[in-house]
């Protein structure tokens, strides 16, 4: 196939106007604010609602909010989450929240920050936080365990407090929650 070369107009053949146009762009950028950040000395301000790494949270009473329902493990597309349920003993003395994970691991190398885990969580126990640059010295280090995830997640200011409400309601009826 032969492609016919387009015939250039006089203005185009002059070459200089196009060069000047290029200079104009260059010069304009001299006076513009810089876009590139000097990472890691400079850090980006993460917008609200950003989906970073998923961490576990505790509630105001310091209870691990996760009840080990394993829905996030089920929904996780890259199978990055691994939960070990507590087994028959549950959580001794925890009242009506009988269950908490014995172990909770997220493989951050697998995690794709999709946010399904947060969306599916019935307990508001896992949140995608603002961390986007996770580093480690080996593959093992990138598997975050429960303690690490909880430490990173911090405390969630729970408005619903459903287990507390249930317990109060039960106590009002003279039933051990």
């Amino acid at each position: 196939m032969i492609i016919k070369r387009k015939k250039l107009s006089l203005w185009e053949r002059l070459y200089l106007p196009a060069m000047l146009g290029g200079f104009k762009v260059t010069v304009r950028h001299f006076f513009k604010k810089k876009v590139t950040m000097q990472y890691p000395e400079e850090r980006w301000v993460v917008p609200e609602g950003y989906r970073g790494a998923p961490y576990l949270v505790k509630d105001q009473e310091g209870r691990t909010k996760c009840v080990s329902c394993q829905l996030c493990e089920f929904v996780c597309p890259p199978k990055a989450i691994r939960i070990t349920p507590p087994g028959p003993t549950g959580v001794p003395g925890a009242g009506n929240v009988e269950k908490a994970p014995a172990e909770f691991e997220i493989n951050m190398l697998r995690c794709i920050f999709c946010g399904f885990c947060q969306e599916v969580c019935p307990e508001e126990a896992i949140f995608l936080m603002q961390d986007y640059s996770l580093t480690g010295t080996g593959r093992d280090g990138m598997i975050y365990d429960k303690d690490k995830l909880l430490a990173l997640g911090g405390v969630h200011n729970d408005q619903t407090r459903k287990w507390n409400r249930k317990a109060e309601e039960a106590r009002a009826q003279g039933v051990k929650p």
Partner: protein
Amino acid sequence: MNESHTTEPIPNALLSQPDFAVPAALAAEADELITHYPVKRSASLMLLHAFQDHFGYISQQAVVWIAARLELAPINIYELVTFYPMFHQKPVGKCHLKICRTLSCALGGAYELHEHFCKKLGLDAKAHGPQTTGDGKYTVEFVECLAGCGTAPVMMCNDTFHEGVSLKKADEILKGRGQ
């Protein structure tokens, strides 16, 4: 089997009665009642009544005794004790005041009567269920329709009906019981 620390024992509404002993007369009465029925189990309500009349309430030991006599599992009797409100799972006062709270009596002033008794005896009128005074002499209880709607408000003091109980009459009932 894993040793679990999170579970609770089976809740028990019945009291234990360590000095439980069935006198011969009561046992004979029980056996006589059983003869009224072609199936032993049928006698359970009547036996429970007999035991309650004798002991004042139905204890764990009574349940087990009756179940054994009727060749049943104790749960069968326990089911009944908790179903029929007339059976007491703990001792009630010597004077058991049962005030009808259902519609006709409520229209006729049963709530005022109940409050009057509670006030007199220092009990909480708002609390649920039967309430017994600290000395164990009186129990005040709201009960459902006593079939005396024409003479509201009605009440029972132990097994005796009192109809058209005005507050004045209420005081007399209490007095008659030795307050």
